[in-house]
């Protein structure tokens, strides 16, 4: 088991290295650098000004050196005035060092956000915390609902309950966040006027998360993922219900209710566990849509801001975090599956 986890960790690190390298390559393409330079100097900057800004801030250095600086295996250098040879901070708003220092991701320095004019870590962690709150409530709503629907549908395969619940879950998997968000907002916020159509106030420390501003984003996100988990639970439950030991339990005179609760449920919930874990990458896209739609300043909102303004360090950190989430949930799902099902041996 330890060997298995160690090997997976190794692959994970390699994947993260490759992915950040690809992201780094894409964000430092010429048009993207020009866009960054224009937004950092001014809208009417001449080609010469753009070029000199890029040279001054080290964006014209060797590609691998730049990537190494971000990683922390090459020293970050200050801006050197070519005339006087005097060193100055690269980005004064991030309090960058004046001496060359090894300060990259390996040292825990995520760099400097050019869009927000702050160190990345100052924006990243609060945003992640906000998204964590959102995800928590989404999970609290989505998982139990999906499991109940799946178990109810799967325990009597082919019954009327099964048919109608299946239609419900297929409909929910066909409703992406940008559709359910629009439909819910129109119905609950505009037509009925019960709920707040924006979650912007939820990040305001004076107001915080409450029922009125948080229900719509949570519902919107929960709907799309729910159907899929419910379908998987149904399939797993239906399969368990045909097993020999369920028939034995029924034949010895146990009630249907206790057969389902005591014998079937635990075995039927192994497969959905994996599915729930593997939902995280999907939820990430959902987080982006929902946070933009309901103006909630979380990780997804930050990612869109970073991508829209080609904020190199912020975008790299966002990619790193999202890839880390995707890969670690995959690992947890594999380990958890082996742990829940003694018949499966990893390695």
């Amino acid at each position, binding site marked *: 088991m330890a060997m298995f986890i160690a090997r997976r960790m190794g692959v994970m690190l390699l*994947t993260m290295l490759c*992915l950040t390298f690809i992201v780094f390559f894409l964000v430092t393409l010429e*048009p993207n650098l020009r866009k960054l330079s224009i937004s950092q100097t001014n809208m009417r900057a001449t080609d010469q000004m753009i070029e000199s800004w890029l040279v001054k801030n080290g964006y014209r250095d060797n590609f691998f050196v730049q990537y190494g600086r971000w990683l922390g295996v090459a020293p970050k250098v200050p801006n050197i005035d070519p005339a006087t040879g005097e060193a100055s901070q690269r980005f004064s708003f991030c309090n960058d060092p004046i001496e060359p220092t090894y300060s990259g991701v390996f040292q825990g320095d995520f760099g400097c956000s050019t869009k927000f004019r702050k160190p990345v870590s100052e924006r990243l962690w609060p945003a992640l915390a906000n998204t964590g709150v959102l995800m928590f409530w989404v999970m609290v709503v989505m998982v139990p609902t999906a499991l109940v629907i799946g178990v109810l549908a799967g325990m009597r395969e082919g019954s009327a309950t099964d048919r109608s619940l299946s239609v419900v879950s*297929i409909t929910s998997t*066909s*409703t992406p966040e940008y559709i359910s*968000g629009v439909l819910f907002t129109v119905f609950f916020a505009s037509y009925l006027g019960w709920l707040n159509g924006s979650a912007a106030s939820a990040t305001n420390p004076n107001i915080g998360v409450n029922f009125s501003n948080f229900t719509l984003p949570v519902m919107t996100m929960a709907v799309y993922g729910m159907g899929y988990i419910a379908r998987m639970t149904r399939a797993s439950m239906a399969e368990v219900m045909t097993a020999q030991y369920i028939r034995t339990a029924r034949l010895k005179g146990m009630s249907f209710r206790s057969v389902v609760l005591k014998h079937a449920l635990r075995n039927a919930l192994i497969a959905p566990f994996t599915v729930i874990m593997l939902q995280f990458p999907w939820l990430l*896209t959902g987080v982006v849509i929902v946070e933009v739609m309901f103006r909630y300043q979380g990780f997804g909102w930050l990612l869109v801001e970073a991508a829209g303004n080609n904020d190199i360090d912020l975008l790299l950190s966002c990619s790193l975090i999202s890839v880390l989430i995707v890969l670690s949930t995959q690992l947890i799902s594999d380990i958890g599956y082996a742990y829940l099902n003694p018949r499966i041996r990893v390695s």
Partner: protein
Amino acid sequence: MPPLGTSEIVFGVLAAFTPVWIAVALLFVVSFAFQRRLSLYGRLFETGPGLVGVFICAFWLFTALMADLVAPHGPLEVFASVGKNKVPGTIGPEGEMFLLGTDKLARDVFSRMVYGSQIVMVIAPAATLFAFMVGVTLGLPAGYFGGRTDTVLSFLANLVLAFPVILLFYLLVTPGIRETAVPQVMSGVFFLFPIIFFATLFYTRFKERPQLLAIQLGVVAILGGWIYSSLVFNADPFGLLSLEPNELNIFVAVVFASSPGVFRIVRGLTLDISTRDYVAAAQTRGEGPWYIMLWEILPNARGPLIVDACLRIGYTTILLGTLGYFGLGLIPESPDWGTSIKEASQLLRLYAHPALPPAIALMSFVLGLNLLADALREQSLKD
């Protein structure tokens, strides 16, 4: 003139779709008449979900084909004299009807929704087809040979799958990237796969019959070369096929995002089917590995692959909507559903009517595909 009432709007919309109803009715009559001879497709008509799924998919397919007949106005036509954000059922000064109202630029919402189906109907199935070509061509050897081939290809597939889709699109579908060679290089690589696939397919089967093979390879080379040159270099010698740079960009990004999923499924199926007796028999006969993969394993994996294709077209439709919603790739005035939803959701609290038709259209089409996939899965399990 006073706007139309609710029932008049409903009947008006239903009447506008008359050519589509006729086409769908014809399709159903023909399908029922020849149900026995249509194998899997015929059996779809035996179940409720299958029937509804076929109906919805056929409905949108015919709507896209006959958009010019269904839509009363053009998708980009601006009716300044009618006004912006008019309610459904508005009647213009010259008696034109705006069944579902006008949007914030005074364009007809209903016509835009109808024309929006064309974009989805072209890109989603075509991108899925290409993704399948890539996934099948790489997934078969990964599952069959195993070992290092499998390790390398699986690592690459997992690499792409570890990217959150939205981040991938933000990096790959930007106006900036169209100035570089990245989309062209990617399409140059990806669009080679169908040519490789068909060339290998015919070669492995007919290499003993050089005359037939020459014809087949010639057709593949001409057709493939024609499509390749028109898609990748936008240089169609006949001027029939053309893709704008932004369309190519979207197309390639969607193929790139969905081919690893296909790869994983094909690889899994190949691992399973490789252990069957008929594969062992073919190996004993001395057949080559590519013959076994393409002519023994692939046909036997078709059931799950057809189901997956249905689901994947639906998923691609959702992806296209996401792209439109974030304003990536598609032109801002494009009538596709995602862009329309984005446009309308900015004024959602004031005017809900421009957002609902594209939202319901997209949802119903994906629902149709999912129902179809569900029915197909059930029917193919009966075999």
